[in-house]
């Protein structure tokens, strides 16, 4: 089985386990006030990252596919969890600490995505709800292997990337539009850290470099909407902009939410 195939099956295994564990939650009739939501979501991650003490920048782009569960322990307070598969592309990262310097342009690598969050309703009115939300996501990349071509002898690279992200801030929901569509604005403090460890082997030569990266831009502004198609099914879409010096990073996400 190919390495990619193994990764997909690993991710599928995790998601199956996740579903298995969340099924009783969904199936049980909770106490009054307890509600459970489950969802599947996809996010396009787009962050500019800097490295080597902010001397250089490159991009971290990714596709995150995750199963999500949200448990409302009491009205207005809920915790959420997600698990899934992430493709992360650290294109443009340059490893100058290896015997032969390399620039990574080999596309996305797969990884396991895990995350958790909490949100609390701060105020409610007929037209607006204000929530305070905080979340944590982490991607644990699967190992990759690349050939180092063009040298007089054979060479190879082994690498693994990972990243984590935190975000916290208020979400303002507007409820006056209709019964079915609820637009929202989210303003968050968000930070991202990551690393890419690369090991180079060229005949008798060898070296390892771990490149630490951090996200540029610390404030994210999101616009989105939740559309309740039926009482049990909702669609949520969101576009996020992270201003940074010299530009703007735009990301997006969408999810299908099932309420129980």
């Amino acid at each position, binding site marked *: 089985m190919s390495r990619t195939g193994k990764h997909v099956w690993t991710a599928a295994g995790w998601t199956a386990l996740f579903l298995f564990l969340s099924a009783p939650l969904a*199936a049980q009739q909770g106490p009054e006030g307890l509600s459970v939501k489950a969802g599947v979501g996809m996010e396009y991650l787009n962050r500019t990252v800097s490295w080597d003490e902010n001397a250089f920048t490159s991009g971290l782009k990714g596709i995150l596919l995750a199963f999500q569960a949200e448990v409302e322990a009491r009205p207005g307070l809920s915790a959420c969890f997600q698990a899934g598969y992430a493709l992360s592309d650290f294109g443009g990262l340059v490893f100058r600490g290896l015997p032969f310097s390399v620039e990574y342009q080999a596309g996305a690598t797969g990884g396991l995505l895990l995350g958790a969050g909490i949100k609390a309703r701060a105020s409610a009115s007929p037209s607006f709800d204000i929530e305070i939300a905080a979340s944590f996501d982490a991607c644990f990349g699967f190992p990759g292997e690349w050939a180092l071509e063009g040298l*007089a002898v054979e060479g190879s690279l082994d690498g693994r990337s990972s990243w984590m992200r935190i975000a916290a801030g208020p979400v303002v929901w507007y409820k006056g539009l209709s019964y079915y569509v609820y637009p929202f604005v989210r303003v968050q403090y968000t930070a991202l850290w990551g690393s890419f460890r690369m090991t180079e082997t060229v005949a008798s030569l060898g070296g390892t470099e771990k490149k630490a990266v951090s996200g540029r831009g610390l404030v994210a502004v999101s616009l989105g909407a939740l559309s309740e198609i039926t009482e049990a099914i909702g669609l949520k879409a969101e576009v996020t902009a992270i201003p940074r010096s010299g530009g703007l990073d735009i990301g997006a996400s969408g999810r299908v939410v099932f309420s129980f």
Partner: protein
Amino acid sequence: MKKSVVSWIAAAAAVLVFVAVPLRPGAAGSGNPGSAAVSPDGKIALPNPDSGLRFVPGRVLLRFKKGIPSWMSELWIASYNAREIGRLHQIRTHILELSEGVSVEEAVAALNRHPEVDFAEPDYIASANVTPNDTFFGYQYALYNSGQPISIPGSPTGKPSADIKATAAWEETRGDSEVVVAVVDTGADLLHPDLENKFAGSGRDFINEDFDASDDHGHGTWISGIIGAETDNNLGVAGAAWNCRLLPVKVLDENAEGAYSTIAEGILWAVDNGADIINLSLGYSEDSLALSDAVAYAYEQGAVLCAGTGNTGSAVEYPAAYDDYCLAAAATDYNDARPPWSNFGPEVDVAAPGASIFSTFPRGHFGPGSLDYGFSDGTSAAAAHVSALAALIISVKPLLTPAEVMDIIRFSCDDVNEETDPEWDEFLGYGRLNMEKALVPIVIKNRSGE
């Protein structure tokens, strides 16, 4: 009812997993408007505006697949609010100008998703490699060979790219002035206008036992210029190790001869006085424990030693033949061929240009009023090019050991005689020096596991 909802979720999950299966790493962009960085079908890897890639703002190159009528392609272009400002007819490629505010990355990503489009790509901006303004740089085929005449008009022309790719390597580094190359030779013209600012000191003269390593032969000045002549100074020649400094150590007399004991003394003094690289463009056929020990001492103290294999067309001479401690440099010419006089044997590590090498000569060497520059041949020049590369590597990677620097130099060579002697061979070793491969980051584009 609840069970059916769970079943519904499981079904959705299965669909998602099914959809995810074809998403091999790197294929994340398929069908996603924001996934500009990944290439679902290998058409293009999008530029990251912060990764140093440069392209013309607002401009895109676009080719439609064969068979698309022109009215349709024009409609396509108009639908993207783009304007055709030129066309490369022979290769059916449109040059488009995007509307103000439209990002090149997003336009390229969007265009590449359409099956009618063969490719869309940014209009990248190329630039000439670093070309110094030294008057005679055009004669230095060893550094950059465009197929120019090797010397005076009517002289042979070289094969383009039969060079050590110095100009491309200088994009990455031009060397660190803290890195010192000791030229253990006949000394150097300390007041040569193309060298005087490059010396780390007046050196050491073991022939006359003083601290004035002036050159009374010319060979050491020639070697010094190849390694480290002042570069981009509108004068003379360019040194391959542009910013690195030189330490002249005179161990050969006016006839370019010196005793092994003197050479050993020079090597020991050089490494004890801060030399990071020791150039040994000298040699003889006989082995010597004293010379061997001096070379081993310098190596163990952290110096990289480079030596010419010899110019007699026979076995590799000493000290180049001290395989464990010394990089042995054979010679190539302006066609990447081996001159017959270049010594050979199992100790040869690499090759570098050594035929018709233009460099500095002592002032007045060719008579009053003559140029202070000239041509010469030999594996001495090959060794000097190797020393220069070692200096540039140490400039950017000062923590490498001599063994690692030597391996980088070996493994980055171009196997220019692979048709007759594939892989390592005793004539050119691993091949002709390639400074670009040794220094410039190698772009990894192949997917994991491929």
